[in-house]
């Protein structure tokens, strides 16, 4: 069985290749380490072995978010607006008159709903989707 091994970390890639070969698989060594596989790379390939640490990066949710899974509540929207204005959690807490702890809670809900991992990604996503007031 022809397989491709995908791992951004060189050492982990080597370890995965070894285990795949031990399992009797033929590892295609001529394809790139990164996740960006072209259709040519997958010619005659039966399986792709992905480093568990990279797997999250490959899932659609980790991408900069194409769709909104669940609509934001109006409070989450308020928080998102302030995030886009560049405010820190404490500043947002001051502006909205809520505790910093509550802000943190809303921020992680916003990141989760937008399917992004960071504040900066949330801002970019929200801007593109027209979620923030311009």
């Amino acid at each position: 069985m022809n397989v491709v091994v995908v791992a951004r970390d060189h050492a982990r890639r080597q370890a995965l290749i070894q285990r795949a070969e031990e399992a009797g698989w033929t590892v295609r060594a001529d394809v790139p380490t990164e996740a960006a596989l072209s259709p040519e790379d997958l010619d005659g390939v039966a399986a792709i072995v992905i480093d568990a640490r990279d797997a999250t990066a490959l899932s659609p949710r980790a991408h900069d978010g194409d769709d909104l899974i669940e609509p934001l509540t109006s409070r989450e929207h308020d928080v998102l607006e302030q995030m886009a204005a560049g405010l820190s959690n404490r500043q947002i807490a001051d502006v909205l008159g809520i505790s910093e702890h509550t802000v943190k809670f809303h921020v992680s809900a916003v990141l989760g709903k937008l399917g992004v991992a960071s504040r900066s990604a949330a801002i970019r996503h929200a801007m593109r989707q027209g979620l923030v007031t311009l």
Partner: protein
Amino acid sequence: MSDSLAQQLSNDLASAATRTAPSLLLLRGRRGRAATGTALDAQSFLVSDHLLDADDEVRARTADGEITARVVGRDAGTDLALLHAEGGRLTPVTLATDVVRVGEIVLAAGRTWTGLVAHPGFVTHLSGPHQVSPGFRLEQAIHTSLDPFSGFSGGALVNARGEVVGISTSALDRGRGLAIPARDVTRVVDSLRRHGRLRRGYLGISSLPVALPERQRQGSGERGLLVTSIAPGSPADTAQLLVGDVILAIDDTTALRPDDLAGYLSADRVGQRASLRVLRGTNPVQLDVTIGERTSDVR
């Protein structure tokens, strides 16, 4: 006996690291992580916004002691925060004047609890411009062969001469590392210094991209931005824009996506007059608007 090329390269990189070291500071970042600071002048330094926990005062370790600094301004969109150390005697980095080239050997330098760290790599590609927040366009992002490490974010990307070509961050590209070029960093720092934040223009609307049916098109293409809300008292409100209007263009910028509008509303537009080309039903309407500034009542 003269040094081999490999030895010369090794010497150059080691010198570059040594030259940068005095300009790098160490802070206790969010969740106890090491956060590197990069000194820009005797009293100010940059930190990665996503690692900066405190909002007012922070303690930072320099090459020869501890200092107290306060946050001047921060911006999550570019992941940069500017701090000021009153009476500080920091050693500033030397910013590279040349544009970084693909293929160049660079060092990502930072600090962790154990001391100086520097990882060598190559500039693999340059990308941009990127609209990273409403009103701020990053002209370029420097991508390297380097994976982020402890102390990476907020640290300096240094060329073989020991000049800083950019500030490293892991927060802008899904955990991968990149560097914001010195030129963009300077623009952000100027704004943070002057306004405490990245200034941005403001109309006061939310909008959605829409496709226009044939009979509604006004010789201006088939797309526009449907106004879905108008903030009371905002510039758009004053200009008598209505919910349901479709924005076709603002000045010469065709409004196809909210991104286009976000790109238009850069800091230098604040206070400027602009002309909105709008479709109201099937009637073309021209509205004059004065671009406001997006502010929050931060105490």
